């Protein structure tokens, strides 16, 4: 039988019915990975042996009648920004090439406990800084829908492996859109949960006040399954929220949207740079909801034109600090210095400078410099402090919008997946990929990207739903309803 590597729900059912074993599923996933990797290069590390061993244990436990976790036997790939004690954790950076974390990130530990079979680590923009996975030091990842195009970023690898049918689920991280944008580019469902809903312990920090781990899958149903496992309070993360987690499965089943107030972000639809096909997809999604009985209201977020500038102050500031630890002294890349270099600056400073110069890529260095500058004496008030104030206004906008609407609907990205190399020389163009997604990070609210159709060229398009803090369930209901009414999420690339 063919093994449905595109559906965790189906794989769970088939295992429970005794029609498939975890080892069969895992072997199929590993075979598929081996077949598609030459075209998309989505993994930074493949854990074939460990995966088979984990699957064998699941099968043994099952036959012994032991209790099994909610993801038992499901192959899952993990973005290489999450610490794993049995695989390297590189953040796709030369700085951390070969680095092994002595501990598992909380979400990774929860995956293991849930019985998930970890098949490997996925490629990403270096330290999650980028929107195309091209800043990776571990090579370029192709989009399974068109390998000459980007899968998006920074969680490009995590999107590509699901879209390529390698495994049904993956974990990404989203600081400014890094789950939602690749999901849109690959026709997946990708959710950034509420800030604090999912533990950041073991997520290598890019911008601590914005980073959040989230699920990627074909369907809302599968994404909810993974979200359920990773959500919840973690005492090891002081910013994690001590709030109960609802049972998302019931929200997947509750797909009646009658009376649901959907706020349409009109301003974003008139945004310069928004491609007509993306606009059309959003308008069609509005029609889908309207015809299903949802109430459509227009809302505006008056400070949305400040999102990107605010984001590109706060994120680099935090990044410049978070990445200070990579200094060549304790772990990671250390450059060899010549006697002349040592004599010129002293051995310590020479080691710092050269290690960081050689260990980090251009985009990471650009952001470290931006952040260092903005935090410097004399600039702090004008940049960082100002950005924090604007951030409060942005949150206020969302609060006001959610007084009128239950969820907000709009675009995820200005365009469909662009060609590899198309924007690598133009950081500003690359930053504009975050135009519609950074608001949710700045406001700390949950947001999901849903498959919403295709361009004339056959490239995936997405729409974004945003909800008030801790209302992931609302996104799941509205998202599952959309997928009941549409078939975009059921399309598969021919890879």
């Amino acid at each position, binding site marked *: 039988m063919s093994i449905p590597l595109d559906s965790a729900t189906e794989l769970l059912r088939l295992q429970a019915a005794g029609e498939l074993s975890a080892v069969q599923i895992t072997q199929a996933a590993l075979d598929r990975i081996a077949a598609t990797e030459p075209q998309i290069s989505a993994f930074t590390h493949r854990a074939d042996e460990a995966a088979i061993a984990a699957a064998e244990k699941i099968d043994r436990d099952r036959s012994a009648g032991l209790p099994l976790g909610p993801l038992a036997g499901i192959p899952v790939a993990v973005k290489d920004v999450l*610490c794993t004690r049995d695989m390297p954790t590189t953040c796709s950076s030369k700085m951390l090439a070969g*680095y092994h974390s002595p501990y598992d990130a909380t979400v990774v530990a929860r995956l293991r406990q849930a019985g998930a079979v970890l098949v490997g680590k996925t490629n990403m923009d270096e330290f999650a800084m980028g929107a195309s996975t091209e800043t990776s030091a571990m090579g370029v990842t192709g989009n399974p829908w068109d390998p000459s195009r980007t899968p998006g970023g920074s969680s490009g690898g995590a999107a590509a492996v699901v879209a390529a049918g390698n495994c049904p689920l993956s974990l990404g991280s989203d600081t400014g859109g890094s789950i939602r944008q690749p999901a849109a580019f690959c026709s997946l469902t990708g959710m950034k949960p509420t800030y604090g809903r999912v533990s950041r312990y*073991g997520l290598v920090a890019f911008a601590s006040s914005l980073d959040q781990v989230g699920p990627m899958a074909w369907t809302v149903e599968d994404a909810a399954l993974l979200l359920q496992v990773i959500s919840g309070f973690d005492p090891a993360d002081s910013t994690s929220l001590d709030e109960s987690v609802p049972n998302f499965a019931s929200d997947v089943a509750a797909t009646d949207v009658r009376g649901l107030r959907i706020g349409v972000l009109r301003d974003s639809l008139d945004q310069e740079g928004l491609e007509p096909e993306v606009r059309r997809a959003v308008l069609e999604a509005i029609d889908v909801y309207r015809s299903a009985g949802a109430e459509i209201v227009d809302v505006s977020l008056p400070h949305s034109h400040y999102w990107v500038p605010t984001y590109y102050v706060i994120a680099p500031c935090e990044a410049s600090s978070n*990445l200070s630890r*990579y200094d060549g002294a304790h772990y990671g890349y250390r450059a060899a210095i010549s006697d002349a270099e040592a004599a010129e600056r002293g051995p310590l400073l020479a080691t710092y400078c050269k290690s960081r110069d050689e260990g980090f890529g251009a985009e990471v260095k650009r952001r470290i410099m931006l952040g260092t500058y903005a935090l410097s004496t004399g600039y702090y008030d004008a940049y960082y402090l100002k950005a924090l104030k604007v951030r409060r206004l942005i949150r206020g906008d969302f609060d006001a919008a959610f007084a009128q609407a239950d969820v907000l609907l709009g675009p995820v990205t200005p365009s469909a997946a662009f060609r590899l190399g198309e924007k690598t020389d133009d950081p500003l163009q690359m930053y504009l990929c975050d135009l519609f997604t950074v608001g949710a990070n700045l406001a700390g609210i949950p947001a999901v990207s849903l498959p919403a159709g295709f361009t004339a060229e056959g490239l995936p398009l997405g729409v974004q739903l945003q909800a008030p803090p801790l209302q992931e369930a609302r996104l799941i209901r509205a998202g599952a309803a959309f997928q009941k009414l549409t078939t975009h999420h059921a399309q598969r690339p021919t890879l």
Partner: protein
Amino acid sequence: MSRLDTEHQVETIIGLEVHVQLRTQTKLFCRCSTEFGAPPNTQTCPVCLGLPGALPVINEHAIELAIRTGLALNCEIPPLTKWDRKQYFYPDLPKGYQISQFDLPICADGFLEITDPADDTHTRRIPLVRAHLEEDAGKSMHDEAAGISDTRIDLNRCGTPLLEIVTQPAMRSAAEARAFLSELKLLLTHLGVSDCEMQEGSLRVDANVNLHIEADGKEIATPIVEIKNMNSFRAVERAIEYEVRRQYIDWEDTGETIEDRAKQTRGWDDAAEATFAQREKEESADYRYFPDPDLLPVRLPRERIEAAQATLGELPAATRQRLQSQYDIKAYDADVIVNQGPAMIAYFETTAETAGDGRRASAWMQQDVMRSLKESDWEIGTFPIPAIDLGRLLRKVDAGELDNARARDVFQYMLENDTDAEGAIEALGIVAVDAGEIEALCRELLEANPKVVEQVRGGKEQAIGALIGQAKKKNPNANPQQVKETCLRMIREG
């Protein structure tokens, strides 16, 4: 105002920054042990090693200790305090930043009252700017033996909770700075918030020093120097004294004032008894402080602060006052006792209560007890004579049963033989001598020493002293005072 040997009036200006290690079981942001002396890098985890992905979680006990300290230092404890990152590169700082507190420290303002070293009947109030919590860095060990330069890093100390206490530049002499530190140590050890061991690094002092010199009718300030690397209170005092001289001479030589030169850091070399230039502050890093996004601000509700206040108990300054009034002792004496810490205070109070005479108890504490402690290197907690036994001994002195000299013999015997006063008196064969016996003794002495009798009659009363020595020889139990009085009476009565 201290005067150098100069025609100018010179005022020394001193401010201190004191880093105190708080006595928590575990570190400030992880649950690694803070115990001193473990093998290098054995008390570490991903958090204090600053490994990728690790996150800090605040140690509530450190907050509690900081609040207690702040309250004891008369500080304001704000309703909200937060964490900031202080950023600089150094190998013993594995995250590349130190989690500290920048603009909302846990303790603000405040003061510590010290006894004026120039006049022990006066107190001086040293105002405090702030006290904030921060994590310690690791330790770099530079090994330049055998011509190779090698630095090794021990991160055990990394993440240990520190409270940095910053004074106003309010001290005016090295002795005053030392008095401040002694009083601070007394207070903190009394509260149990820190061990304050300079040798172990649980108390570290940086001193900011400069001079205000009156010359040509104007006041001139010399450049500020921050002195580091002092490993004892004595070193602090000597380093400041040295720096005062050095700055004065430097000013005479160069005429440089505070406008001409940025703050300079100088280290103290204990062996050379000199400070030496380390680095100029002007080229030091911009720390780029910003709020740590990994930690939430800490809310400190009124009730929590009031509860902490209630646990403080009597603080040393109040104890000094109370001892003076309750036991009728002098300020200096109360100072000496209180400065020895809680165990000494308790010992004194029990002794004084039992003896029924605070002054006598105080005198014995300071002379006999403290001398014995010093000689035998004992702590008061393990002193062989229980306070109650010493009190009983002193009660006998008070009742005239023993003179001071005999009491000292008893004290010495008690010290060496683990016995109480009664046992010692018995063992030493000390018996009370009744009045009849004394009269007989005195009559015998007067008859044998007509010359002395004559001298006394001639107005030289102190000649009687010769008889007291003889009386002691004939009967060691005879009370000298009683002998003296009886002899004088008998001479008068003819």
